[in-house]
């Protein structure tokens, strides 16, 4: 029965949604300290290529490759971050966009390693490796009524969902701590934050590097989910797309990034029946959004509204209630 519901195509789309959520969170983190970085595609590429090359040439386990991809992206993020963070607003955006293009051009031209614009194929596929592992320990997808294909994509999706839950948990908690308050303070007024004793450079580099690590991590996952990468996957339009995820969904809250990535990944798939017109609708929705709701779909007031309504349904408002404001 399960086997009939699980269409590998849907599972694959869901897997991409998960990867896009990670990317959206990566840009949300940098935005939360007030920095507009368009380097996420570059960091994503670095993570993807690092992991792919390590697993192809040195036959490292995928998990080692993915972690290495994230770490390398993070280190480069720190190196780029320290000088780049002297820039603000659009200047930082242009500089990081330039960085992303440099990375892509390196992938195109360093043919001996990256095989140029043809890209890398034969990257170990996360799902297939796992399938082999399960078969080795004597488990066959047939036993739960699944085809190999379904099992692979289901497994990949479950892993990605788990990763996303951990990441959202991690950054929600970070946000609610003094680190998150420091990011927000820097975003709102850098000079005042500095006068209140915040080490601006540290926190800006921290949030930039966290964004780079996440983008690299997502890139590495992407490489092992798709098993094929090429420089075109990490061009500037990818950076813009990631930025749109976060801004569309609402860049003030982490759930905005989650929503934006989910909705905007699903939209073109859902609109497949009108084929070439779908990107027109995609564009139109973005224009309307920016005109009528520039802060994004989900912001703090939407969350508060939900919280209040869910609470009152659960009945916590009964009995004596202390009204703090009066």
């Amino acid at each position, binding site marked *: 029965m399960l086997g009939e519901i699980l269409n590998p195509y849907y599972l694959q789309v869901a897997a991409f949604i998960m990867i896009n959520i990670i990317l959206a969170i990566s840009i949300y983190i940098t935005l939360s300290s007030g920095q507009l970085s368009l380097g996420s595609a570059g960091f994503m590429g670095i993570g993807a290529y690092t992991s792919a090359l390590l697993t192809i040439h040195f036959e490292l386990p995928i998990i080692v490759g993915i972690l290495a991809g994230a770490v390398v992206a993070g280190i480069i993020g720190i190196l780029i971050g320290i000088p780049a963070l002297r820039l603000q607003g659009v200047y930082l955006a242009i500089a990081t966009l330039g960085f992303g293009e440099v990375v892509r051009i390196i992938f195109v031209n360093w043919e001996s390693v990256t095989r140029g614009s043809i890209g890398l194929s034969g990257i170990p596929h996360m799902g297939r490796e796992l399938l082999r592992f399960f078969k080795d320990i004597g488990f066959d997808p047939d036993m739960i009524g699944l085809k190999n294909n379904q099992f692979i994509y289901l497994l990949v999706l479950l892993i990605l969902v788990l990763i996303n839950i951990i990441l959202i948990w*991690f950054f929600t*908690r*970070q946000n609610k*701590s*003094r*680190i*998150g*308050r*420091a990011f*927000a*303070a820097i975003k*709102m*007024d850098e*000079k*005042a*934050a*500095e*006068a*209140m*004793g*915040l*080490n*601006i450079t540290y926190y800006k580099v*921290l949030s930039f590097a966290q964004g780079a690590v996440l983008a690299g991590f997502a890139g590495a996952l992407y490489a092992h989910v798709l098993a094929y990468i090429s420089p075109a996957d990490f061009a500037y339009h990818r950076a813009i797309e990631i930025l749109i995820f976060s801004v569309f969904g609402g860049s003030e809250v982490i759930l905005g990034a989650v929503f934006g990535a989910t909705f905007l990944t699903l939209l073109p798939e859902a609109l497949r029946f009108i084929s070439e017109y779908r990107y027109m609708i995609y564009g139109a929705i973005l224009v309307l959004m920016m005109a009528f709701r520039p802060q994004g779909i989900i912001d703090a007031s939407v969350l508060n509204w939900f919280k209040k309504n869910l609470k009152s349904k659960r009945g916590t408002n009964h009995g004596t209630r202390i009204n*703090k*404001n009066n």
Partner: protein
Amino acid sequence: MVLELTKITKNFGGISALTDVSFKIEQGQIFGLIGPNGAGKTTMFNIITNMFLPTSGEISFLGENISGIKPHKITEKGICRTFQNIRLFSQMSVLENVLVGGHCRSKSGVLHSVFRTKKQCNEENEMHAKSLELLELVGLADYRDTIAENLSYGQQRRLEIARALASNPKLLLLDEPAAGMNESETDDLFDLIKKVQKRGVTVLLIEHDMPFVMKLCDRIAVLNFGKKLAEGTPEEIQNNQAVIEAYLGSEEEDQIA
């Protein structure tokens, strides 16, 4: 001696904003810095907090030379300020603003914060308790969850003071705290600054409201065109001929005009 400024000079290009200004502030004093507009008072604040580097001169805080260290280090050492044009974190709640003020007195890093270790929880609880106590002090305890930009002007000024106090300063710099306040708000502010003084905090303030300054300050320095014109107790300043001339113009000038 809490703060000792020696021959501070600051040039912006060819313009000299401050020339050889020196004064000392004793522990527990409320020290007023007054002078006509453009006299260099705010520049002096920016130099003390190292937002600008002085062209020459030396700043010593509790016997330690602090010239040239980073602004956030200055706050750690115990100098905190408010701003002439209020600079709150306007989208944050009142409580969060004060919590950010306590940032440099807490230490939990990313991992401690994410895994909510016991140390971090204790620290966070202490910060909350202290912030609420400070909000009580400035009279904003009922507004803890209000977004800062929705406060009235006088409340915003008081919140800035609470935020600065959260960093446990030994020296508090107030840049025109009474600006734009009505009489009753100014009276509240007077009481507040006296309370701050009782907590053992030394206060250096810039203010244009003369009756307020004369009533509040233990000692006053007057700046005019970047130079120190006079220094002394409020009575001495009130009777100082040079100061009167700077504020009101001299009789000769009037005749020429």
